[in-house]
C-alpha cells in the first residue's frame, strides 16, 4: 500500500478513512504472525541456551566448589549457614524439609497416579456399605499441586546453589557477605517488593492458578456424571472432548457444536448491545445532568447511584419477578392499561426475552456508566467548546466532532474490558432468565438467552458434565483473549503507564 501523506489522508471522507484503517488492519496481520514467529523462535533459542547454561553452571559450581557448597547440593542452605548467612540458610533448609514432608505424607501418593488418575474402583456392598477406592479428583488436584511444589523446589534449589557460588566468590574476594540483619533490612527497603508480593502471589497461585490448571486438564478427561469421583474414576481421554466441538451431527436436531455456535453468537450479540447501549445511554444521561443550567445535579446523580448500592441479586431478582408472566407487576400494569387484553410473556419467547434482558441491562448499567462518563466529560478542555460555539457549531456537531471522539479515545480500553466483561456477565442473565427459554434444539438444556458462561455453569452444576464445561471455559478464554489482542491493536492506546509520573 502506498503510504498516504497527511494531506491526502485529510482529503478522504469518513468511509474512505475507515476503509483505509480496515484494510491496514488486515494487511498488518501477516506481519503480526511474522513477529510472533520471530518472538517464538527467539524465545525457544533463549530457552534452549538458558537450559544448557543452567546445567553447565550447576556442574561447574559443584566441580569448583568447596565442601560446603557440595553439601548444599543435598542439604539446602548448608553453605549459607556455614558462611554466616543463617537466616537465608535456615529458610532454604526449612523449605526442603517442608517439601520432603509434603511429598512423603501427602503429595507423593497423588503424584504417582497422575498419569492414570487412579485404578481402584469403589465397591458398593449389598448391605448399604461402600469401600471407597481411588479418588481421581484428588489425584489430579493434588498431583498438579505437587508438580507446582516440585517446580518451586527446583527454583529454590537453584537459588540456594547460586547463593553458594556468590558466597564463595565473596569469601575469595574478601568482601562482606550480607548478614541476616542486612537481609531483613533489604526486605523492608530495597527488596520491599518481595515482602509485599509474597502473600498476594501465593494466594493467586493456590486459589486461581492451581484451579485453572486443574480445569484445563479436566477438558482432557471424561469427568462427567458417569465418571464422578469418589464413587467412580475418571481418566484421560486426550482431545476427544474438543472433537465434539467440530462434530456436526447428522440429524437435524441438537448437537453440542451447533449449540456452542449459536450460544457463542448470541453471547457476542449480547455483549455488543449490552456494552454500547449502556455506553451511549450512559453518556446521554451524564451529558443531560451536566448540562449548563440544569439544577439539582447532585440529586439526579444520587438517584442513579442509589441503584448501584443495592446488591445485584436483590434488585435483579426482584426485577425478574416484576416481568413474570402472567402475574408480575409489569403485566399487572399492562393489563390495567389495556383492560386485560395485553399481557406479555417476557421470559417465554426467545426474542422478547433477549430484548428484555438488554433493556433491563440498561437499567442496571447506565448509572455506572454515567459516573464514568461524568468524570471524563469534566476533563474535556472547555476552550474546545467555546471556539466551536464561536464558529456556530450545532450541539450535534459539537457532540460528534468533540465529545464523542474524545470519549472514544479515552475510554477505548474501558470499552474493551466492558465488552469482555459483558460476555461473562453471569449475574444479569442467570438472575433474570436463568438462560431460558429452554429449547429442545439446544444441547444440554441450554436456553435462548444463555451466554457461554451461564451454559457452562448449568452444565457443571446441573448436569455435572465437567468435561464439557471445561471445554467451554477454554473456548471462552480463547475468544476473550483473541478479541482483546485484536482490539488492543486497533484502538489508540492511552495506557502509557509512566505518563503521569
Amino acid at each position, binding site marked *: 500500500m502506498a503510504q498516504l501523506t497527511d494531506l491526502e489522508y485529510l482529503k478522504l471522507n469518513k468511509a474512505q478513512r475507515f476503509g483505509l484503517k480496515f484494510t491496514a488492519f488486515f494487511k498488518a496481520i501477516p506481519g503480526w504472525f511474522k513477529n510472533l514467529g520471530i518472538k517464538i523462535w527467539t524465545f525457544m533459542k533463549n530457552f534452549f541456551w538458558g537450559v544448557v547454561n543452567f546445567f553447565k553452571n550447576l556442574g561447574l559450581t559443584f566441580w569448583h566448589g568447596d565442601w560446603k557448597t557440595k553439601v548444599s547440593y543435598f542439604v539446602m542452605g548448608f553453605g549459607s549457614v556455614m558462611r554466616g548467612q543463617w537466616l537465608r540458610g535456615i529458610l532454604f533448609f526449612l523449605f526442603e524439609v517442608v517439601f520432603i514432608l509434603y511429598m512423603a505424607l501427602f503429595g507423593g501418593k497423588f503424584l504417582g497416579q497422575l498419569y492414570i488418575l487412579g485404578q481402584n474402583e469403589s465397591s458398593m456392598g449389598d448391605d448399604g456399605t461402600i469401600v471407597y477406592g481411588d479418588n481421581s479428583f484428588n489425584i489430579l488436584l493434588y498431583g498438579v499441586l505437587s508438580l507446582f511444589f516440585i517446580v518451586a523446589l527446583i527454583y529454590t534449589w537453584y537459588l540456594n546453589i547460586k547463593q553458594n557460588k556468590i558466597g564463595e566468590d565473596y569469601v575469595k574476594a574478601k568482601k562482606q557477605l550480607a548478614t541476616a540483619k542486612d537481609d531483613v533490612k533489604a526486605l523492608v527497603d530495597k527488596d520491599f517488593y518481595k515482602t509485599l508480593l509474597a502473600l*498476594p502471589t501465593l494466594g493467586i497461585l493456590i486459589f*486461581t492458578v492451581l484451579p485453572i490448571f486443574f480445569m484445563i486438564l479436566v477438558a482432557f478427561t471424561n469427568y462427567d456424571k458417569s465418571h464422578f469421583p469418589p464413587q467412580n474414576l475418571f481418566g484421560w481421554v486426550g482431545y476427544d472432548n474438543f472433537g465434539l466441538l467440530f462434530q456436526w451431527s447428522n440429524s437435524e436436531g441438537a448437537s453440542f457444536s451447533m449449540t456452542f455456535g449459536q450460544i457463542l453468537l448470541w453471547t457476542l450479540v449480547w455483549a455488543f448491545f449490552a456494552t454500547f447501549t449502556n455506553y451511549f445511554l450512559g453518556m446521554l444521561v451524564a451529558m443531560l445532568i451536566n*448540562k449548563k443550567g440544569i439544577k439539582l445535579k447532585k440529586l439526579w446523580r444520587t438517584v*442513579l447511584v442509589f441503584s448501584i448500592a*443495592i446488591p445485584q441479586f436483590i434488585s435483579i431478582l426482584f426485577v425478574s419477578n416484576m416481568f413474570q408472566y402472567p402475574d408480575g*407487576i409489569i*403485566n399487572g400494569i399492562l393489563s390495567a392499561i389495556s383492560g386485560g387484553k395485553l399481557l406479555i410473556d417476557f421470559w417465554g419467547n426467545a426474542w422478547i426475552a433477549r430484548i428484555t434482558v438488554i433493556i433491563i441491562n440498561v437499567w442496571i448499567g447506565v448509572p455506572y456508566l454515567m459516573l464514568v462518563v461524568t468524570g471524563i466529560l469534566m476533563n474535556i478542555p472547555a476552550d474546545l467548546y467555546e471556539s466551536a460555539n464561536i464558529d456556530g457549531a450545532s450541539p450535534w456537531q459539537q457532540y460528534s466532532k468533540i465529545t464523542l471522539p474524545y470519549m472514544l479515545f479515552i475510554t477505548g480500553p474501558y470499552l474493551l474490558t466492558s465488552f469482555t466483561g459483558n460476555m461473562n456477565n453471569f*449475574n444479569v442473565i442467570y438472575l433474570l432468565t436463568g438462560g431460558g427459554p429452554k429449547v429442545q434444539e439446544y444441547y444440554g438444556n441450554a436456553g435462548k438467552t444463555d451466554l457461554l458462561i451461564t451454559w457452562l455453569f448449568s452444565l457443571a452444576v446441573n448436569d455435572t458434565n465437567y468435561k464439557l464445561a471445561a471445554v467451554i471455559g477454554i473456548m471462552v478464554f480463547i475468544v476473550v483473549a483473541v478479541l482483546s489482542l485484536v482490539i488492543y491493536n486497533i484502538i489508540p492506546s492511552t495506557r502509557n503507564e509512566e505518563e503521569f509520573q
Partner: protein
Amino acid sequence: MAAEKHSMSMSKKKTIVNTISYIVLGLISVIWILPFVFLLLKSFDIGNTGVTKNFIPSAWGFDNYAYLFSSDCNFLQWYFNTFIIALFVCVIQTVMQFMMAYTLSRFRFKLRKPLMNIMLVLGMFPGFLTMIVLYQILKTIGLTGDNAVPGLILVYVASSGMGYYVIKGFLDTLPKSLDEAALVDGANRMQIFVKVIIPLCKPILIYTVLTSFMGPWGDFVFAYTVSLGSQAGMNVAAGLNSWLSPANIGSHFTHFCAGGVIVAIPVMILFLFLQKYYVEGVTGGAVKG
C-alpha cells in the same frame, strides 16, 4: 432590534430545552427508583406471599419482617455470617490490593511485566469453572459446611491481589518525587509506603474498602455451595435466593423482599455517605485502569 429578538428566542429556546431536560430527568429518576419502591411496598404485603400483579399490598403489615426475626427462620444467622465475612474481607482485601498495587506502581523488577501479563490472562478465564476445585481445597483444610465462614473469607481474599488496577492507576498519579524526597530523608521503602503514600490515598482507600465490603453481600452461588446445607455457614444472598426456588416462591416472595430491604439498608447508607469516594474511584479506574 434584530439582535434583541434573536436573544429573546434564544432564551425561550433554552427554557424549552431545559424543561424537556427536567422532564426526561424526572422520568429517568422514576424508572430507576420505582423498582425499589415496589420492593419496599411488597415487603409490607401480608395479603399474598407470592408474586402478584399489584404493587399496592392488599393488606399491610410487618409480618414479613417479624418472620425474618422469628425462630422459624435463620435470617439473622445468615445476616450475621455475611456481616462478619464482609468485615474481614474489606480489611484483608484492601491490604492485599494495596500491597500489589504499590509494588507494581513503584518498583521496577525483572518479573514485573510478566506478572502483570499473567494476571491479565488469568482474569480472562471464567471463574465459575473453578468453583468445584475451590470447594475441594476448602474441604481438604476443613473449611466447608459449618466452617464455611472462614472458608469463604479465605477464598474471597486469596486472589484479591488481581484486582489491583484501580489503586495502581491512582498511585501512578502520585509524583515519584515524593518517594525520592523521603528516600533522601533516610526513610526506607516500608516507611515511605506506610507514612507517605498511604495517607495520600484516602479517597482510593475508602473506595476499596467500600467495594470490598459490598462484594460478599452479593455472592449467592459460591456461598451456597460451600455451606453444603449448613445454616451456620450460609450467607444472606444464598439464603434469600433459596426462597425464590419454584417450590418456595409462592410462600416466601414477600419474605425475600423484606430480607432484601434489610440487606440493602446498611449498604445503602454507607454508600450514600461515601458516594464521593466511590465516584472518584469509578471514574479514576475507568480512565487509567
